[in-house]
């Protein structure tokens, strides 16, 4: 077992190194894409900046607190997009009939699909996320202690799990239909875009939905309240760990899809 895991990790690292080396062949194009990624989320930042210039706070959250929140969400999303892009582009793989090849190889299909793409250019967004995060860390007036640092780590872990799960669902759905899958953008890009504000500001219905259906609130809103000292119960801190359970139904859907798979032929 340990041996198999070691081999899988080795193989994944090999995949990643291939992707990194191949984008580095086209350095200009790579750095331009990185810049593009940066500009895209920089516009979102400008929007937040100017709204706070005018209104100073939103539902009791200050500019610094919102940046802390957005920084964390954007980090989670850009990391997930970096390594789980293979799921995101899986519909294309099914369409071209390439999944057959994956199935005949003696390695896990998930590993190979994840390894099929590694989007290094997301470091453009990552950079902005890190800057906003540290600005938030120092300026939001949070009194940092061990438990709060742990909470941030939980948030990152849980958030990456939720976004990975969503990309995984997108990949699994492509076993059944290849049309109209763009609606999944609402949950992936939509969440990263609108996750810039604490979810509580969107009202109760959205908060309920994001607590029990797609657990964004578990990785964003509740632990954020803990960080900012608005709640002190330990459950707010541990909420992101609960979100890890989201991967279970995603995995079940994937397995069901693989069983269901019929090749597109050729």
């Amino acid at each position, binding site marked *: 077992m340990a041996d198999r895991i070691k081999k899988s990790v080795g193989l994944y690292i090999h995949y990643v190194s291939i992707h990194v080396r191949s984008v580095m062949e086209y350095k200009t194009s790579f750095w331009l894409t990185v810049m593009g990624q940066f500009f*895209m989320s920089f516009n979102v930042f400008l929007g937040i900046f100017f*709204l706070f210039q005018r209104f100073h706070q939103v539902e009791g959250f200050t500019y610094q607190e919102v940046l802390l929140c957005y920084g964390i969400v954007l980090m989670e999303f850009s990391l997930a997009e970096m390594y789980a892009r293979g799921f995101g582009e899986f519909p294309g793989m099914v369409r071209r009939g390439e999944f057959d090849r994956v199935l005949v190889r003696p390695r896990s299909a998930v590993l190979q699909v994840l390894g099929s793409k590694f989007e290094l250019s997301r470091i453009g967004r990552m950079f902005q996320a890190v800057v906003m995060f540290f600005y938030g860390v120092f300026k939001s007036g949070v009194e940092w202690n061990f438990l709060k640092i742990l909470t941030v780590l939980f948030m990152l872990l849980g958030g990456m799990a939720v976004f990975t799960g969503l990309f995984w669902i997108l990949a699994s759905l492509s076993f059944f239909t290849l049309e109209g899958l763009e609606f999944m953008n609402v949950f992936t890009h939509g969440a990263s875009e609108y996750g810039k504000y604490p979810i509580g500001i*969107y009202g109760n219905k959205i908060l309920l939905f994001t607590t029990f259906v797609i657990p964004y609130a578990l990785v964003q809103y509740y632990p954020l309240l803990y960080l900012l000292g608005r709640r002190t119960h330990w459950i707010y801190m541990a909420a992101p760990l609960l979100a890890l359970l989201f991967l279970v139904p995603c995995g079940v859907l994937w397995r069901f899809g693989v069983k269901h798979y019929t090749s597109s032929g050729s």
Partner: protein
Amino acid sequence: MKKYLSFFRLRFIMGLQYRAAALAGIITQFAWGFLEIMVFRAFYQTNPYDFPMDFSAAVSYIWMQQAFLAFFATWQMETEIFDSIRDGNIAYELCRPIGIYHMWFSRNMAQRMSRGALRCFPILIVAVFLPRPFRLEPPASFGHFVLFLVTLFLGLAVTVASCMLVYAVTFFIISPLGVRMVFTSAADFLSGAVIPLPFLPAKIQYVIELLPFASMQNVPLRVYSGSMSMGEMEKAVFLQIFWLIFLVFLGQILFKIAERRVAVQGG
């Protein structure tokens, strides 16, 4: 003129074919519009005095923006055109006895209009019947509505004319990625796609409104929602016409130069 109209028709019909993508797009834009309204509502509830327009005007702005997204989304350029310049298929286009600028212009107009036509009505119809604070209200007057249609068309034309400049630049540099990116992100913010321009500080808003980007979605959406005074509207329409003429003129010159010195790629 007839040949350009037929290019227009061809693209228009082609665009209507992608119905599943349109449905997915409609759902996405709904969710987007709804969340955007919730954001502005949260700010409005926190501090209604600093809100630069009526709340219902902001709601109309957002719904109209989502409904006509395909008209103004500068990131939706035709990849076919970039590809044809890069891989040399442009040679076939140049052989045709028609002006390439006009052909691409009409193609782009058609593509955006067909996408918009497929997507706008479901969004508009549902948005009109939503409960009160989220409802898309009718325009301030019939005059506003007519002016909205005029400025919508002008805004679309300005958008296409600016995209034409990006295509033109591609003739001179092979990888348009950088230019395209800077253009898209600048246009996104400066046209009021990220937040409506009245939410910016007054001085910044004043300068931005003079730029061609503000002649894109900013004008029709604000005319519809009634957040512009009579004088502002006159100025805005004048600027739209000015920028349209200027951009088309500039684009044609660039295309002329490009066609003269074009090096066809590939074999």
